[in-house]
């Protein structure tokens, strides 16, 4: 029994890597995230500067939170892109016919979104720090909390991307469902970043617990539920 579950776990992760590779190859060829989502996120950051009247004190105090709000907006677009890849030419059905492990498919799609978001976060992070005059403090906390926040966003987003798939109002429904769910991620990531930037890394670290819990819970939930979500009968 132990051996069998080990074999199944290996197969699941192999499928996960295959799906992630497939999604990333499609992204490298189509460049949707890089050419459309990244510039969009930059526009959002610039707009925050305009909306807050380029007030450097305000921007420095809110920079961490504004960064994560911009990431959230961009994240919805990335999720929408990720979930629509399989909707063309019945590619999703074809994948299932290949006997892909569906838990693995969830993990693979999540992994691909995580990697895409990390690229987005690097570009946007540099831009935010430069234009908002933020000071680079507590790099370790920034990186670790950023990573777990990204995993949380990608895993819950992949669940909702699949849930809203065949809905006729998908584009508007996804953000409505997704945003309230990831409120804890926004809160914890913003606080962790703001505290780290202001030089209180040790206080920022306590928010990591929420980010890690969220990421783990939604990765497990998605792996278990993805098969049920994709079933149409």
């Amino acid at each position, binding site marked *: 029994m132990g051996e069998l579950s080990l074999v199944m776990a290996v197969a699941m992760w192999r499928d996960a890597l295959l799906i992630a590779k497939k999604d990333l190859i499609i992204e490298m060829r189509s460049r949707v995230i890089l050419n459309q989502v990244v510039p969009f996120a930059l526009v959002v950051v610039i707009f925050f500067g305009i909306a807050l009247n380029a007030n450097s004190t305000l921007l420095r105090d809110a920079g961490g939170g504004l960064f994560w709000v911009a990431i959230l907006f961009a994240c919805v677009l990335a999720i929408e892109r990720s979930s629509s890849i399989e909707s063309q030419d019945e590619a999703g059905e074809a994948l299932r016919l290949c006997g892909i492990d569906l838990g693995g498919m969830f993990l693979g799609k999540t992994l691909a979104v995580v990697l895409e978001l990390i690229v987005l976060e690097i570009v946007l992070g540099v831009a935010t720090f430069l234009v908002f005059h933020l000071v680079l403090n507590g790099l370790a906390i920034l990186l670790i909390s950023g990573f777990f926040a990204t995993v949380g966003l990608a895993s*819950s987003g992949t*669940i*909702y991307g699949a*849930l*809203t798939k*065949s*809905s*006729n*109002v998908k584009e508007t*429904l996804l953000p*409505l*469902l997704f*945003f*309230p*769910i990831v*409120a*804890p991620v926004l*809160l*914890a990531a913003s*606080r962790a970043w703001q505290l780290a930037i202001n030089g209180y890394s040790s206080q920022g670290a*306590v928010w990591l617990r*929420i980010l890690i*819990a*969220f990421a783990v*819970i*939604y990765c497990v*939930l998605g792996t278990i*539920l993805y098969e*049920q*979500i994709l*079933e*149409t*009968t």
Partner: protein
Amino acid sequence: MSRFLKQPNRVETNLIEPRIPTVIRVVGFVAIVGVGLTVWLGLWVTPPDKFMGNLVRLIYLHPPVAWVAFLAFGVTALASALYLWKRTRSMLWDRIAGASGEVGVVFTGLTLVSGSIWGRPTWGVWWTWDPLLTTTALLFLLYIGYLVLRNSIVDPTLRAKRSAIAALVAVVDVPIVHFSVLWWRSLHQPPTVLNPTLSPEIHGQMAWTLLLGFVSFTLVYVWMAWVRYETIRAQDYLASVWLDNALQERRDEAYVSK
């Protein structure tokens, strides 16, 4: 020609009409009487509070309404889990989840409004970033999304499964939201609601009125959810037969004109 004139299965009109059992009519009646009594006791019979004055009368409305909101979402989560579990899978659970979710959203809205009305004179603001308040507002939006998802999927089986999963995913989020918001606010300021000088001395009469409020609003919930359940069932039936129904009507017209 006779192919068009033969009479296939007729639509069962008694299935289209929502059937409201007598027991639920009684529940509805008792609920209305209970709410009426709560209003009368709350506004005229009970005394004003030493500290809060007449403002205390909102206590007969706000906590019962909030309790029903959380109860309704609990029922939605439970019914969704029962739907997803293959042994108990039945459209019954899907409809209960949907009906309860709708009533839950209404009561969450009422909770926010009544809390806001109480907050304005007490705290001086319509809204404050109190942990419970923020959690409730997020919950309200979360379940609006759930209802929109339900209404956006046409196929009943697909709708049932997707919304059951959405409800479960949402309910897992509720404690995370609550603790993160609690942590966020308590790191900055002490919670305002639990300020000891504001908590009213519960007078005997007041306690009974509050209890009556809880019972009455719970009955209102049962009544509303049940009626919605019956309407959803009738809608599902109508959706499944509307084409047969329309075809039959056209056939009837042909028969008459002949």
